Structures are given as structure tokens and as C-alpha cells.
């Protein structure tokens, strides 16, 4: 029987099978950010341990950092202390840091691929659930807790139980103005926020093969929103083209690249590989998606009315009622009739150059509605420079947007970018949990194009018809 992409990578990284049925797995890349690492480094100090492979460990600052021009002086003393702690830890333990002010600083899941650290066939971990993003390259990448961060720092391994495999096939092609964000939101709506728990998802099918690396990353990024720690896409020529571009300092070159490519080409799941579960989604039927509730599985086609509390499969009446109360919505409402206060374009889901180009194409020659604040935050400083070289920043500013420096920004508002209570936001991020973007803030997850159109209209619109008029 053939092997899946996941099984090939897993078996190539087993250091040792443990008596209880788990495996000791070798980790090829460990990405570190300021929020989930200080207690791990503290643990190392207390035990007198050192970092086993600083050369495989990379660090950046993203969650806490301000995105305004005066960002280097972090006004919040608690945030500043956390950022300084990372600086000290990286100095003390000899870890490469892309800190605030560095040309490569950015959201950890944006800079890994950008720098060529994210490669097919690798195991990649980070103390962050959206580590699943890196699976877009055909790597096995997953989020871990702080105790596991400490474990990887000391041993470069993790003890893991082998998850199941779940193949999601996107057949056909998406219609106009339907993006990978819509594909993944649709998938989460279908299988539920726990539908992938215990599995590694592998995305395939014609629609996925046709996607750019940026678009693939948006899909894998949100695997965790379906409960799956990891999502993967088999490496192909699109992957190799992305990795071998000049600006990827850590990607293999020369003879190493030849060897690597031979390995990468052996990775795709064998034709006769068997998955524990499979699901096929007809991509051609997917409409632009928008969330109406307080988790990413509470999602619908734009144009559908907000559901009745007892009409949502997989949720109790009480859960739906709580979500609607929080969101300030009543059943039957069309979201296209509800005013927005804020539009956020950014986050590790949709802050790459392609996302910004899509938003800019909509905003070009248009202006945001007066009552809407529009925030555009590139995922990394490299993305920011590229966007500025292409003139996208001028389009954003002319449209009335605030054009910022790189960071997580309003995806979670640990930094100064936050929603105020009851503000309603169309957001390209990945989580619409209660309080996620600011206490009592109300989030509707959408694609970058939908977000840009919403900023102009002042409310959500169906970008497919709106752009025609």
C-alpha cells in the first residue's frame, strides 16, 4: 500500500518509537515569538539547560509590536518587557532574531516561507496554533504549547502520537472573486470546528493545484480552525518556483538544491495511498463566505440571512443564541444591510503580497466610506517594501486607509490595534472568537477582496455583483 505525504514525512523523522505507542519525532525548524516563549527560556535557565540546535531555531517579534511609525518605542511597558525578554533570550542562547526594526521582522508564519526556512519535507513547530500555515509547502508543521517549546529547545524533538489522515479534495475551479479564504471557510463550515481534530489534513484537487503559494498558505493557515493541528499540500512546480526565487536566503542552492528537489518530488502521496477520511468539495459551487457568529464554523454564503438559532447543524440553540447576542444580530438579517465600523486587512492568513494586490485592485480609484476605519497591515517588512515598490501603499492611502508596519496587529489586539466594544469589523484574519480583536468587538471573517469592497461600501457586499455596478 502506498504512503501519504504526511506518512512519508512522519516516518522520516521518527527518532524512536516509545513503548506507549507514541513516537519521538525530530524537529527541523523551531520558530519562536515573544508571547509563548519566555516561560520556556525561564525553564531552561532554572534547569541549567541550553538550546540543543540554535542553528535550527529562529525568532521574531510579531504579536505585541505596534504597527505605527513610532513603533520602536513600545509605549505599553508590559509589552515592552516581553519584547525585551525575547531579545535577551535570543542573545543569551545564541538564536537568530528578526527583531523590531529588522528588515525581515514580521509575522512568524509570513517570514518563515519568505526567508526560505519553510521547505517541503521538513518538520516545523512553533508555539502558535497557526503554524499549520507552513504545511502549504508540503512540510509537517504544527503548533505547540510552551512546555513543548521548552522540550524542543532542549531536545530538538517532540513526543507525539501519530494523528489520522484526512484528505480534502477541492474539485473543479472556483468562480470569479472566490478565493482560497472562501474555500477554507466553506470547508470549516462543512466539517465543523472540531471536524479535523486528531487528523492531519491534506488538501488536493484541481482547485488547490491551481493556487499560488500565498493562496495555499491561507488555506493551510486555517486548518487549526477546523481543529486540525496540521494541514498540508503536496509540493509541486509552484512550490519549487517559490522556493528558488532569489530573495530566499535560507533555501538550498546548487548541489544541495538538486538533492532537495529529488526528495521533494518523492513526497506527494502515492496514487494508492489510503486516507482515514476523505471529503470532496465542489469548488465551483462556493460563494464568497462570511462568518456571522463567534467561531469560524459559524459561516455562510454572502447573501444568506443570519440563521435561526435552531437551524444551525452542529450547534445547540443556546450556543447560536449566545453568538447572535454577542454579535448584535437577529435571525433573518442580511449582513449586507448592517453598517461596519472597521475593516482590517492583515494577519498571517491574508497579509502577503498577493492579498494586498487583491485588496488594492478593488480600492484603486475608490475611497473608503467615511464611517469606516480601514487598516492595512503587511505581514512582514519584506511584504511592506514590496508593496511600496509596486505602489500599493499609494493606492491604500488614496483610498483613505492607514498603511502600517508589519505585525499581528488587529488579528488579536495584543498591541495597540484593537476594536472598541461593539465595533463591527470585516476582517481578513482567521478568528472571530468573542473578544479576539478587542473586548466585545464583533468580527466577520472574509477574503481580502470582500474586505476591501466592504470598506468602500461601508457594509458587507457581494463582491461579485458589487464590482460590476
Amino acid at each position, binding site marked *: 500500500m502506498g504512503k501519504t505525504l504526511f506518512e512519508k514525512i512522519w516516518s522520516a523523522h521518527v527518532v*524512536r518509537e516509545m513503548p*506507549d505507542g507514541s513516537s519521538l519525532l525530530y524537529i527541523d525548524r523551531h520558530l519562536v515569538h515573544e508571547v509563548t516563549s519566555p516561560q520556556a527560556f525561564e525553564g531552561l535557565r532554572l534547569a541549567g539547560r541550553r538550546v540543543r540546535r540554535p542553528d535550527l531555531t529562529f525568532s521574531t517579534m510579531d504579536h505585541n509590536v505596534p504597527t505605527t511609525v513610532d513603533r520602536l518605542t513600545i509605549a505599553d511597558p508590559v509589552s515592552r518587557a516581553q519584547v525585551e525578554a525575547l531579545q535577551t533570550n535570543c542573545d543569551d542562547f545564541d538564536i537568530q532574531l528578526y527583531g523590531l526594526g529588522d528588515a525581515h521582522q514580521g509575522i512568524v508564519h509570513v517570514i518563515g516561507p519568505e526567508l526560505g526556512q519553510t521547505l517541503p519535507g521538513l518538520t516545523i513547530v512553533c508555539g502558535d496554533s497557526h503554524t499549520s500555515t507552513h504545511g502549504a509547502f508540503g512540510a509537517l508543521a504544527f503548533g505547540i504549547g510552551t512546555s513543548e517549546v521548552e522540550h524542543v529547545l532542549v531536545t530538538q524533538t517532540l513526543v507525539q502520537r501519530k494523528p489520522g489522515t484526512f484528505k480534502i479534495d477541492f474539485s473543479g475551479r472556483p468562480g470569479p472573486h472566490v478565493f482560497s479564504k472562501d474555500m477554507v471557510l466553506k470547508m470549516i463550515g462543512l466539517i465543523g*470546528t472540531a471536524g479535523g481534530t*486528531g487528523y492531519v489534513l491534506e488538501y488536493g484537487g484541481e482547485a488547490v493545484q491551481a493556487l499560488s503559494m500565498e493562496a495555499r498558505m491561507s488555506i493551510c493557515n486555517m486548518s487549526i480552525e477546523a481543529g486540525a493541528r496540521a494541514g498540508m499540500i503536496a509540493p509541486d512546480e509552484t512550490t519549487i518556483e517559490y522556493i528558488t526565487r532569489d530573495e530566499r536566503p535560507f533555501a538550498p542552492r546548487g548541489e544541495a538544491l538538486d*538533492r532537495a528537489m529529488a526528495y521533494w518530488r518523492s513526497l506527494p502521496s502515492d496514487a494508492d495511498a489510503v486516507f482515514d477520511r476523505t471529503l470532496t468539495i465542489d469548488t465551483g459551487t462556493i460563494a464568497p463566505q462570511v462568518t456571522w457568529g463567534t467561531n469560524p464554523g459559524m459561516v455562510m454564503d454572502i447573501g444568506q440571512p443570519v440563521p435561526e438559532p435552531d437551524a444551525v447543524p452542529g450547534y445547540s440553540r443556546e450556543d447560536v443564541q449566545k453568538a447572535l447576542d454577542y454579535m448584535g444580530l437577529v435571525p433573518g438579517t442580511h449582513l449586507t444591510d448592517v453598517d461596519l465600523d472597521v475593516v482590517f486587512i492583515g494577519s498571517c492568513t491574508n497579509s502577503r503580497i498577493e492579498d494586498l494586490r487583491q485588496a488594492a485592485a478593488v480600492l484603486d480609484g475608490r475611497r473608503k466610506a467615511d464611517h469606516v476605519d480601514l487598516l492595512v497591515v503587511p505581514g512582514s517588512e519584506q511584504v511592506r517594501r514590496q508593496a511600496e515598490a509596486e505602489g500599493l501603499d499609494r493606492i491604500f492611502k488614496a483610498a483613505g486607509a492607514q498603511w502600517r508596519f508589519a505585525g499581528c496587529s488587529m488579528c488579536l489586539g495584543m498591541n495597540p490595534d484593537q476594536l472598541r466594544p461593539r465595533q463591527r469589523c470585516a476582517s481578513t484574519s482567521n*478568528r472571530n472568537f468573542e473578544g479576539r480583536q478587542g473586548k466585545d468587538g464583533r468580527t466577520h471573517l472574509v477574503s481580502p477582496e470582500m474586505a476591501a469592497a466592504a470598506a468602500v461600501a461601508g457594509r458587507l457586499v457581494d463582491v461579485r455583483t458589487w464590482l460590476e455596478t
Partner: protein
Amino acid sequence: MQPFTTHTGLVATLSRSNVDTDAIIPKQFLKSIKRTGYGPSAFFDWRYTADGQPDPDFELNQPRFDGRSILVTRNNFGCGSSREHAVWALAQDGYRVIIAPWIERNGQRLPAFADIFRSNTAKNGLLAIELAESEVETIFKSVANQPGLEASVDLAAQEVTLLTPDPVRFRFEIDPGAKEQLLKGLDAIDLTLAHADDIHRFERDHDTWL
């Protein structure tokens, strides 16, 4: 780490599914660089009103739950962010056990706990117990009917006993590795370091492309 063998305590209920780790510990508390001090902030946005007083409408704030150490809740608890702070907050707020149901949807069994959350619990002496939906429903009903209801948990035997006048016993499954770690309070890093030779050997001919 503090081992977990048996525990008897007051049971409190939180009837919500998909409780995410942002709700268990909101972001502003993630700025701390310490491992302690999170207990009073557990469920912060639900627990306190805008002026910082305990919100009487929040289920877990009922006086009858004072001193609780066992939390019974709904499916997919701990989803979302990987923040271990969520587990620290629960443990430091006095919880030793969390019980939630697996459910069935589209013919699939969906686990009670999110993956990363579950793996974080065992590393912090917090026992996550998955029961059937009907069993959890029984506990919810019993707690509603009997203020002060306690339960006792025996990890070695993998049993929860609801201490109603006629005690009800539920058996649960648990990952053998997590069980061992909890029972002995083992340090996971020490255990792995015992295999340092294997790691060294593996590293010698493994290509990381750096």
C-alpha cells in the same frame, strides 16, 4: 510537576460548547513573562463586569460553586490558540479535572477537547476526561438538582464517580502516555533526555537543508 492520582471535589458546570482559549484567558494576560498569577483571570471577559466586579450572571460565579475543583463543560473545549496560559489559568484557579463530551456529527466522532489544549493539560497536572454525551448530560442534571454535589476521580482505574446518594460511576479512556505522565508527575524533558544517544545518532545522517 505535581502528580495526579485521585481527586475528590465539588463539581461546577459551564454549559457552552467550543469554549476557545481566547475566552479561557484573554490576550492581555499573555503579556506576562511568568508562569504564575493567571488564576484570577480565567474566563476574564465572562467572569467580571466592566467595573471589575464578579458578574452574577456568569454560570461559574454562582456561590454554590465556591471551592469547585472539577469543571464539567461541553464539547470542543480549549479550541483555538495554542496558549498554554489557558491551562495555567485553569490549574491556578483551582481546577484539577475537566470533563467534556465527545459528540457525533455527520457520522463522525468529534473529540471533547482540542488537540493542543489536551496535550497542554497533561503537562500541567490537569486531567482532561472525555465522556459520552449522555454521561455528561447526567452530570449536568445531577449538579443542577443537587447543590454541593462532589465527584471523585481515580486516574489509575480510569473512573469518575458522581457522589450522588446512589453513586454513579463512569469509565473513561485516556492516552497511556498522558496517564503515566500525570500519575507520576514526570518531567517530559528528563524522559526524552534519556534517549539523547538516539537523537544524536539520528541527527548525524538527517538532512535539515540548513
